[in-house]
């Protein structure tokens, strides 16, 4: 019985691997190029995906509100740049402020999600939308009007509103000069890698502490957990705080690695791609682990690198590639959710 369920859980990852192999041959690129691209994307995205694990463990489903964590980090970057604090000092400051702010905001979201039990996924999506517009309002209209501009390079020539693209090279350099090694042409910062390993270990470790046991218990049955004497509200808030903080950290690593910030679009869809990655790694909306995150990110981004090229070659049309990529991302979420649902129904019988 147990063995059979495990096999079922492999459906999504195996589909992925098969699809990736197919695309690899269609795309006709070298394996080294693929490895280099996937490694880069892995580093950029993995922490964000880890951020999703806690809420799933606590039975709150996919936390689409992680997008708020990413916006906080972006805002912190802009604010720190506005005060002309550059280099390592600036990066450290961004990290500090964004994590603190994420914890605070996470607490508020946690309180909110406690009020909408059972509807966490939808609520977090809507909260994400709302936060997006507040964010836009601040940086489109607030900068140069309410907020004083110290760094003229940030704003548009009219003096109001942050530019679309903000350069973060000053921060990127810090990491690029600390223990870098290469895969193909891609530079991998040891510092970032260490951060990722620490995060991965932290999630794994946390799941094996009494707090982790409580989180799991709440996730499996909130009512029972409450009757055993677990303060479920508190556990759920802790979970969302952790998730938001991880999201902020994840976006920090991401932007650090890219070296520039698309102020108004960078955070869009990040949460959906993160969810897709986790699901691709064989997680369900009820069960997810560090393992799922690592496998999923590799699988998803392998396909992401390959699919536009494969699409271009297969249909002899360059523009089809991008559509193909989006189709893959949303297709996975839909496919994984359906498979999950079916497994769950099976489990009940």
């Amino acid at each position: 019985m147990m063995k059979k369920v495990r096999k079922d859980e492999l459906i999504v990852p195996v589909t992925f691997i098969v699809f990736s192999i197919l695309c690899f041959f269609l795309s006709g690129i070298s394996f080294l190029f693929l490895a280099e691209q996937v490694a880069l994307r892995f580093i950029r995205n993995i922490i964000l995906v880890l951020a999703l694990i806690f809420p799933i463990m606590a039975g709150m489903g996919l936390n689409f509100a992680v997008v708020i964590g990413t916006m906080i980090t972006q805002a912190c970057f802009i604010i720190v740049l506005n005060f002309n604090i550059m280099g390592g000092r600036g990066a450290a400051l961004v990290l500090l402020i964004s994590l603190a702010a994420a914890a605070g905001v996470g607490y508020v979201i946690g309180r909110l999600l406690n009020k909408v039990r059972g509807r966490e996924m939808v609520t977090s999506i809507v909260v994400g939308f709302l936060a997006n517009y507040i964010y836009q309002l601040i940086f489109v209209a607030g900068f140069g009007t309410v907020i004083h501009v110290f760094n003229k390079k940030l704003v548009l020539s009219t003096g109001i509103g942050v530019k679309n693209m903000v350069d973060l090279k000053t921060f990127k350099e810090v990491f690029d000069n600390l223990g870098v090694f290469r895969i193909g042409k891609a530079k991998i910062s040891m510092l970032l890698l260490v951060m990722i390993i620490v995060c991965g270990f932290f999630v794994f470790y946390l799941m094996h502490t009494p707090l982790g046991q409580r989180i799991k218990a709440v996730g499996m049955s909130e009512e029972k957990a409450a009757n055993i004497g677990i303060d479920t509200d508190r556990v759920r808030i802790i979970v969302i705080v952790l998730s938001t903080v991880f999201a902020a950290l994840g976006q920090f690593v991401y932007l650090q690695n890219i070296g520039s910030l698309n102020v108004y679009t960078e955070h869009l869809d990040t949460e959906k791609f993160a969810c897709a990655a986790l699901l691709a790694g064989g997680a369900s909306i009820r069960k997810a682990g560090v393992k799922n995150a690592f496998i999923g990110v590799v699988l998803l981004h392998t396909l992401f690198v390959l699919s536009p090229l494969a699409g271009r070659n297969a249909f002899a049309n360059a523009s089809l590639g991008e559509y193909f990529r989006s189709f893959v991302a949303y297709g996975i979420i839909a496919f994984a959710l359906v498979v999950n649902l079916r497994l769950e129904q099976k489990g009940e019988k």
Partner: protein
Amino acid sequence: MGEYVLEVRNLEKYYGQNKVLDKVNLSIKKGQIYGLIGANGSGKSTLMNILFGNSVISGTGGYSGDVIFEGERTRFRSTTEAIGRGIGMIYQEFMLIPEMTVAENIKLTRENTKSIFGKASGSMLSFVDKRKDNEDAARVLEQLGFQIDNSYLVKNISVNAKQFVEIAREVNKEDLKLLLLDEPTAVLGDEDAGKLIKVLKELAKKGTSVLFCSHRLHEICQVCDHVTVLRDGQVISDYTKDELDMHTLARDMIGYDVAAVKKEHLNREKKEILKFQDFSVYMPGEYLDGLNLDVYQGEILGLTSLSGHGKLAVGYGVMGQFPVRGELLHGSAAMEVKNVRRTIEQGIFLLPDDRKNMGLLLEHSVRDNIIFSGFYGRNLFQKKMGGIFPVKDKKEIERYVEEQIEKLEIKCESADQKVKELSGGNQQKVCIARAVLVAPKVLFVMEPTRGVDIGAKEKILDMLVQINREQGTTIVVASSELEELKRISDRIAVFCEGKLSQILPPDASDEEFAFAFTGEEEEDGQ
């Protein structure tokens, strides 16, 4: 005063308008096994929930009266608080996490930890010491005399094993002062129940007090030092160990005010209208197991049992609300219960016990509710406009609704009043008026008088008898109010633990009913 672990004084609790606990007083000594018995709705569970700080209580307006724990007046706001003070509870429906192992469940919230970072052990952020947890769990289970592998997931173990895991979890608590048990032996066989009782006695010897709630009277008599009988939220009687007697307990529990009014019994020829053959219903919280029963045309059949023992599952099973297994014959043809529309067309109709959620359109008027089933299901009150288009016959509806309101004495401002504004009794009358309109052949009625005041109760019962007599409707009433069933039924089927225990005539003695309720063998007591 110091000798009492727990004292309850003048405890009162309302759910909405219903008083479920009425000036309840209890005192439990240290190391005492205190029995609490009572039929469905007597307030046992409510009492336990109050003592354990369950959020259900504060969510429904709290309670009045005093709970004195270890000589100190307390008011637990959460189960966490109650557990912190040394109270444990074993639930009838297990509070175990199915996806965790036996050991994990036993040690949940009290895990052993290794302190890697030199933090104090027991911290929320230290690493769980699985081996030590397993050893602990194994030791407790051995102490209970129950053999099971610690590493099994709880979802894969048997029901009685679950019960033992739950008990192990509570017993493993070091400073357990008071243990509350809600029907712990309901799922256990005699042998396992014996083991449990032994454990309870040992616990009591060590100084833990036990509040033991059960409907298995012989167990109560066997272990309890003191027994309190609750009925309708009131303490009916108190007995010490020497005074215990199963017959008195049974009578106190069910109550023996036999009502004077009875339906006259007609001798009809026995023609089956519904035939249940090995009929099982899987309804959450209520389970019907392999029912074989004939329902005769034109009778009023009462179904009764303690709560959760199967009386409600019959009707809901017939109406296809829950998964069923087995055969149901209507006349001589097999019925497909999943096809609810067809069932209703065949003249089978159900008035649910959960009126607010299942039986009524709360936001709609009294009028709409009365005519709903007839209008949409039976195409009544339709006239042809211009000879072609069917429209509502408003005049006819008005006449009928007014007539019903008068006849059933539905207390409402007008037929336009929203149903949600009516009292429970009047809501039930609306339900009945609706059922009358469709003139069903078989009418299932669930708990028709629950949450209904005494005056309305009479009217409702009277109506049921009237429908039966005048329209020849076969009525199957599921109710926990035995007195009422006795007054209106031709036969009463008693269920126990999902099985048909006995079919008794309404004039059977209270003892017979009490034994049928508890599933005890007659010779046990006689």
